[in-house]
């Protein structure tokens, strides 16, 4: 389709020239207007792709025309024609919305080129915009369908539950003997029916759970959680099942594992699902080991952000071709144990969803016939991250100074507040003072633990450390910490490696011992 161009110029010669040139050589459909007013009238009546306008015209000039078009016909492109030396007007025109400008006297080739370029650009833009619109619409549609799906699952689960209840009641009535005596075979098959009703109920529950997780409607009640206790709890609730197959469940989560930030109930569900799975796929006499550690530097992308928990079993293992798909809905490995009597095929999908809702990741390693290891990560609680960083860096420092036989001093500060009211505030003040006293050293490590502050200082020998200690004590005297009533003083404990102690444990012990001094 040829592009429609409106040429606006008060000089007749130019109109005639452009009319001929643009239609003959440019292939445009050209219309003419001799003033801004006429141009606006034409634009009201029919659409143009582009308006090529002169700058200086009586009454409505080019700038006004461009501004007007930009306002009322934003789809129409404008190009300004200016004489030499009126570059300011050209820039003004661009600011008002013109796509380009050309200078008079006009060069025919250049004019056509500029027009084409501007029009092509517009075409590309329109195409892109249409594409974006389409995507937006499709996305909207998908969101609607997704919401419908969730709604459907929720309604379906509810609607199925009621008839299921009647069936279950009826079967249980007969099974219980209330309706009369039943024989062995009747009991066997009714029990089978009952088992499968329960299974169907589990599937419904899982479906509903998963749909909520998938649509992001799962609500997490975040808090700091110690994993050791929670894991023991989950393990002991599953031990009866494990005992049936003489499977040993061992929890080896260290006390020192930092607390995670998560939803207690959901994390318990993660454990229950994974341990339950392991029991299911582990032959008699097997073993399940649950362990946890802080993710090491390079794998976590930032030290001390996540803990990794592993559930390792001596089960039948997962064929390599299934490893990828195992977390998908309804994915079950063919020929897996007990397919007919248990498992909804949703457990791992739910587990993955729950882990991901905690910003964690889950993965599996497996060897056929030997067993599988499921590992998932959870974020470490904010308050422990700092602590952890301290410990990690201190370990590193200690290792370093041990190797080079260089000194490392550990300070332990404690606020003794007889009033006992404003510990947190006092600790803040103390931390600041400590930092000021030590600020000439670049690599101080600071950690707050309960009512104490720990600081480690590298490359300060015993004498230097004692000087620093005196300075802090004096500093505390001169700028007393402000407590609300009561009297406050600061205790400082200190130990330096290698002059005094030989191991890190010794270092801590010594610093602690001297806390009163």
């Amino acid at each position, binding site marked *: 389709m040829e592009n429609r161009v409106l040429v606006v110029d008060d000089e007749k010669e130019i109109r005639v020239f452009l009319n001929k040139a643009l239609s003959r050589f440019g292939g445009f459909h050209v219309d003419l207007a001799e003033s801004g007013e006429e141009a606006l009238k034409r634009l009201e009546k029919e659409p143009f792709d582009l308006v090529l306008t002169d700058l200086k015209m009586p009454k409505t000039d080019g700038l006004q025309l461009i501004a007007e078009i930009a306002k009322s016909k934003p789809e129409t492109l404008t190009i300004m024609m200016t004489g030499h030396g009126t570059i300011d007007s050209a820039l003004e025109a661009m600011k008002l919305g013109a796509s380009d400008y050309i200078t008079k006297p006009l060069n025919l080739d250049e004019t056509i080129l500029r027009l084409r370029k501007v029009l092509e650009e517009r075409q590309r833009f329109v195409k892109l915009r249409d594409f974006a619109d389409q995507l937006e619409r499709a996305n909207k549609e998908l969101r609607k369908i997704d919401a419908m799906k969730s709604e459907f699952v929720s309604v379906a689960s509810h609607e199925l*539950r009621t008839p299921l209840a009647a069936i279950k009641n009826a079967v249980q*009535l007969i099974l219980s003997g209330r309706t009369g005596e039943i024989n062995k075979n009747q009991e066997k098959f009714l029990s089978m029916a009952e088992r499968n009703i329960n299974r169907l109920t589990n599937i419904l529950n899982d479906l509903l759970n998963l749909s909520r997780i998938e649509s992001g409607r799962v609500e997490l009640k975040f808090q700091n959680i110690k994993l050791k206790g929670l894991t023991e709890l989950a393990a002991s609730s599953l031990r009866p099942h494990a005992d049936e197959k003489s499977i040993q469940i061992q929890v080896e989560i260290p006390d020192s594992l930092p607390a995670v930030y998560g939803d207690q109930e959901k994390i318990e569900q993660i454990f229950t699902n994974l341990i339950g799975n392991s029991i299911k796929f582990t032959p008699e006499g097997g073993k399940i080991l649950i362990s946890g550690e802080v993710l090491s530097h390079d794998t976590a992308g930032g030290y001390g952000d996540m803990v990794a928990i592993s559930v390792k079993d001596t089960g039948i293992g997962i064929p390599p071709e299934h490893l990828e798909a195992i977390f998908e809905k309804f994915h079950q490995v063919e020929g897996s144990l007990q397919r007919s009597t248990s498992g909804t095929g949703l457990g791992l999908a739910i587990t993955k969803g729950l882990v991901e809702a905690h910003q964690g990741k889950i993965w599996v390693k497996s060897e056929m016939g030997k067993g599988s290891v499921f590992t998932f990560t959870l974020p470490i609680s904010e308050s422990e991250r700092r602590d952890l960083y301290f410990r990690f860096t201190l370990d590193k420092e200690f290792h370093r100074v041990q190797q080079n036989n260089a000194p490392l001093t550990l300070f332990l500060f404690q606020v003794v507040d007889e009033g006992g009211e404003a510990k947190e505030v006092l600790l803040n003040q103390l931390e600041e003072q400590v930092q000021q006293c030590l600020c000439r050293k670049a690599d101080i490590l600071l950690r707050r633990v309960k009512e104490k502050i720990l600081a480690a200082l590298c490359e300060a020998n015993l004498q230097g450390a004692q000087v620093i200690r005196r300075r802090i004590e004096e500093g505390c005297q001169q700028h007393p910490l402000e407590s609300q009533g009561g009297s406050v003083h600061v205790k400082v404990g200190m130990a330096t490696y290698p002059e005094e102690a030989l191991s890190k444990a010794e270092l801590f012990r010594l610093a602690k011992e001297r806390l009163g001094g």
Partner: protein
Amino acid sequence: MNPKKILVVDDEVDLVETVRFPLEMEGYHVLVSYNGEDALNQARKENPDLILLDLMLPKLDGYKVCRLLKFDERYKHIPILMLTAKIQEKDKVLGMETGANEYITKPFDMDLLLQKVKAHLSQ
């Protein structure tokens, strides 16, 4: 001694039957209602010893029936066990807020239900 009176409310006739039967076998006198309005009327007229109440009911839903009874001095002593196919946490909370004594999700275990009925009646 007169047998204890239990009002069973559910719009699913089959479900009502499967609950009524074992209750009657246990020796209870069972009244039945298939919608909320009728349930409320019967409860007020018959003053049952316990009510098994479905949540989703025609005319007047279970929440409302429960609230109307529990906020009435004359009837608030009647134990109400909610039977429902809704299993979401928020529904449970809502159910408890209306003053229901128990919240039992469908499908339920028959023996468990009978135990709970017995426990509430002996209180």
